[in-house]
Every structure is written in C-alpha cells, then in structure tokens.
C-alpha cells in the first residue's frame, strides 16, 4: 500500500505521457487508432500503448474522475498487482515460507529495475504490465492446467506484444513451462503462443518495422556514457563488441546491480576518485543474494532434470528469462528492459532463501546456521534499505514530474502553434491536476539520500 501511495503521488508526466494522451484522442474510433498507430513508428509496433491511453482517458471523461486518479490510479493498481501476483506465485504455506517471502519482497521492491517500472510511465508503464503478465503466466503454469488460465495467458501475450516487444518474455515463460513439463503448461498452449509470436514477427516485417539499431539511444561503455553519434562512430562498422558488451552488462546489471545503463560505476569511481555509497550498498546486497541463488542452483544441478520439482524448474526458467532479457539489451541497456527479469530474480531469491531456511531447519551444523543467519541479517537489512530508497526515488520523481508542468506554457505543452483548442483545453486540465498534486521537495528529504539511494 505504501508503494502504491508513492506511485500514485507522481503526477502524470509531461515526457512520454502527455503526447500519447493527446494523440490517442484524435482518431474517431479505437479501431481507427489501432490502424493508424500501427504505422506511426518505423522501429516499434506498439498500438496498444495508444489504445490504453485512449481507454483510460475515456474513463476519466465518462466518470468525471480526474485524469490523475485514472492514470496514476492504474499505475498504483499495477504496483499492487505485481506484489499480489508475486505472493500468489510464491504460494506460502508455512511460516518458513512467509519468512522467505518477506525477504524476497524486499528484493522485488528494492531492485533498481522495479524502481524504473514505478518511476516512469508511458502513460502507464508497459514494462510493469509485462512483469505482471509474466507473473500471472508463471503462477498459472505452476498450478494444474486450466483452460481459463491458458486462455488468459494467450490473451496477455497478444495484448503484450502489441504493447511492447519485451512481451516476448511471456512467450519464453510459456514455452519453457512446456519444455520443463510444468503442471499448468500444455503443449497446445506453447504451440499457440509460438504461432502468435511468429505472426507478430511477420506483421512487423510486413509493416517494414525494423530494430532501432546502434545510435538510436545513448548507452554506457566502460566508465562513460556515449551519445548516439559517438556510438555510431565507434561501432557502426563492427557492432558485435558493443552487442556482447550490452548483453553481458544487461545480465550483470541485474545480478550485481553493476553496470547501470551500461556504465560501470566502479570504473567511473576509479577515474573520478570518489565512490558513492549507493554503489557499495547495491553491489553488496545483489552479490549476496546472487550467491545464494547460485548455491541453490548448484544443488539443483546435482539432481537429474527429470527429478526436478517446481522450484528447480522455476530456477531454470528464471535463468532463461534473465538470459533473454539480457539479449534484449543488445542495442542499449536500460533498467526497464530487464525489469521483468528483475521480477524473476526476486522469484529465484524466494526459492533460494526458502531452500536455505529449509536446510538450516533440518540438516545443518552450528557453523551453517551461523552463516545463514549472518547472510539473512546483512542482506535483508541492505535490501530493506534499498526498499526505502525506492520510495525516496519515487518522491524525487514526483517533484521533478510536477515541476515539468510549471516551466512551459500550455500552448507549448499542447504541441505549439498548431495545437487545437481541444488539446489546449485538455492540457490546461492536466496541468491544473498536476499542480494540485502535493509533493515533497527533495530539499526536505535527508541530505544523505542522494548518496545512499540514487545512482
């Protein structure tokens, strides 16, 4: 609930959200919007982004609720859904499970990729929607197969693919579930999902949609961030070193919280001579949890895959999702892109911590008990600290987002001289709602917050 509150306090953002809300209102129908939006970009096929904005605007207009309540409420509900679905996937039955779940939830919310999902909105964060969908699909295939669950999973895949390309991870989970013979994953669902992904690729090809390529975004390289032009100059002729760097960096960003956006803070600190404490907190907390996951995975590998239970299969699936997410970072690394993998990382944490607690409970020596106890005390404290940082960062974002509405006049916000009267009127309403949203200035937040919580 406190997370939802922090998310809800962020005003609708000028960047990434306003233009989408305005543009989505123009076509005469949703079908017309679907057709038009499918051809608006040469690098992406994301019509659902505009459809969602249109539908949410329609709710605001029809009910008389504020746009803030509808759009930010949807985002806050999404935050609650992710936590609720995570708990559903974990399915705690014993007090020991509840303890492991408490730990895993701090990892889920404290991870920098989760912060990115909650901080940004387009106008509702697509990556958070994909993460929620992936959790739903995972929860479904961990339970006995049901037609309703399979149908919803396929619907989520279709909707997700039209929302953002990361939805391919839903297909990865369905397919991996079938390959691993998980209880709720039937072959026919996997085949249907595969056909849908192939159709999606064919439609992209028919619409002549291609990937963004090198230089479309700035990205990190070693200790610095290179601009799009600098990346083109360096890697246009031979992009493979950059691709490999990004894929490896994408995976490490998740399991070690380093690099961030492709920049290794440790290298940057070596050059600048100062290391921010947040880097140490994030690196240490992530390495501790990753070590626990690795130990648990090693134990799983000692058993034949045929004898694997749901936990071992979920670990394998999590590893696969992290790998595919890292591959999606080939062109540039961004926290959002690996956010679904971040959720899977938290699921793997739950399994690993529960496994550790189980072993302590049954077969451990005093030495092991002390080691596990130390691990839990240190890492749980660090992750709880990171959770507080997520709230801190969300409040900073609220301040920045609200200020964006104050620094430009309404006509400029509505698109300049060509803006229609309706657009300006809507912008005036959105601006009034944003200014009415009370936020806290970072000047009132702890001075040390920037150094310990913000990278």
């Amino acid at each position, binding site marked *: 609930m406190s997370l939802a509150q922090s998310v809800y306090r962020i005003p609708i953002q000028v960047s990434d959200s306003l233009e989408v809300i305005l543009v989505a209102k123009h076509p005469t129908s949703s079908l017309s919007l679907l057709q038009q939006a499918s051809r608006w970009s040469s690098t992406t096929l994301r019509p659902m982004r505009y459809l969602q904005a249109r539908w949410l605007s329609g709710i605001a207009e029809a009910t008389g609720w504020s746009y803030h309540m509808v759009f930010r409420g949807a985002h806050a509900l999404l935050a609650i859904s992710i936590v609720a679905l995570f708990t559903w996937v974990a399915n705690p039955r014993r007090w020991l499970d509840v303890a492991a779940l408490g730990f895993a939830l*701090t990892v889920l919310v404290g991870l920098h990729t989760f912060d990115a999902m909650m901080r940004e909105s387009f106008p509702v964060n697509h990556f958070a929607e994909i993460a929620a969908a992936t959790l739903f699909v995972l929860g479904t295939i961990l339970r006995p197969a049901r037609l309703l669950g399979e149908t919803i999973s396929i619907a989520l895949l279709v909707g997700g693919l039209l929302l953002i390309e990361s939805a391919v991870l839903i297909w990865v989970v369905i397919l991996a579930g079938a390959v691993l013979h998980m209880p709720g994953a039937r072959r026919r669902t996997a085949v249907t999902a595969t056909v849908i992904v192939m159709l999606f690729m064919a439609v992209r090809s028919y619409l002549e949609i291609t990937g963004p390529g090198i230089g479309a975004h700035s990205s990190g390289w070693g200790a610095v961030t290179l601009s799009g032009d600098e990346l083109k100059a360096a890697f246009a002729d031979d992009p493979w070193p950059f691709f490999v760097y990004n894929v490896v960096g994408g995976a490490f960003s998740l399991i070690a919280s380093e690099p961030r956006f492709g920049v290794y803070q440790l290298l940057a600190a070596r050059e600048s001579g100062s290391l921010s404490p947040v880097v140490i907190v994030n690196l240490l907390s992530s390495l501790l949890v990753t070590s626990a996951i690795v130990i648990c995975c090693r134990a799983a590998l000692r058993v034949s895959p045929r004898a694997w239970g749901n936990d071992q299969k979920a670990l394998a699936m999590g590893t696969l999702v992290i790998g595919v997410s890292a591959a999606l970072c080939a062109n540039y690394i961004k926290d959002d892109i690996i956010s679904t993998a971040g959720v899977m990382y938290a699921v793997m944490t739950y399994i690993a911590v529960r496994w550790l607690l189980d072993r302590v409970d049954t077969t451990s020596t005093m030495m092991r008990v002390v080691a596990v106890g130390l691990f839990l005390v240190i890492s749980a404290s660090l992750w709880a600290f990171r959770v507080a940082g997520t709230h801190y960062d969300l409040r900073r974002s609220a301040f920045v987002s609200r200020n964006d509405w104050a620094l430009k006049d309404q006509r400029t916000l509505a698109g300049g001289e060509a803006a229609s009267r309706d657009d300006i009127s809507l912008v005036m309403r959105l601006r009034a709602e944003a200014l009415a949203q009370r936020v806290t200035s970072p000047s009132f937040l702890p001075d040390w917050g920037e150094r310990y919580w913000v990278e």
Partner: protein
Amino acid sequence: MLPACLVAVVGLWSILANNAGGWVWAPDEVNLPEAVATGDYAEVRRQLESGVDPNAPADVRKRLLGSKPVRVTPLQAAVWARSPIMVKMLIDGGAIVSSTSLAVLKCMNDENNNHDVRVLLDAVPMGRGPSCSEVTVPR
C-alpha cells in the same frame, strides 16, 4: 524477516501520517518563499495562480536558505537561492518591486554574484534607490 516487517510498519505509518506531515516523509506544506527557496516551480506557480500575495514575507525554515530560520519575501528568497527562473516567474506573477526593495535585492545579489539574476534586476524600470549601506539585507 524483521527488516521487512520494519519496512512494512514504517510504510504503513507513512501512509497514515504523511498527509499531515508525519515523521517518515517531510511535510509537503510550504509557504511561497519556501517553495521558491527549494526550487519548487510547480508550487510557486500553483500558489501564484491561487492568489497568494507574491510580495508577502514569510518565515523560511532553517537550512533551506540559511543555517537558521529567516523571514524574507519571495523575491528575496529567489535572489538568495540564485534562481533567475524564480525571479522571472515572480515578477511575471505580479511581484512588485519598489526602489528600496530593488536595492535590497541587488545588494543581496552582489553577495551571491549571479549574473542572470543581475540582468533581470537591472531590467526592472526604477529610479535610483538607496545604496547597500542604507538598506538591511536579510541574513
């Protein structure tokens, strides 16, 4: 599990206490000079549009401008904070500058030496005002 429980309790308290300015997160109620001092453009805009007097002095909490609380006008806070955007926003929003208050602002800016603020203050049409030795600069 204890740290997670602590976070949950603190989070719940945050929800219950925040709107009233609880101890978990700082209060979001600020007066106009405080909004200016903290770079809160949106709050400045909101207060100006809701009819708050842009000339009224108010107490600014310690550490926002100085090490102790200080009573300043919004324009004085903007000059103290070296924010030309705030100075312009306030003048556009109806802050009236007299020859004496302009002299105070210029003397304050002499101490901070912000070129952009100086340009804005020099552009205010006003006759010759008192010198810095003849006015009291808030500190």
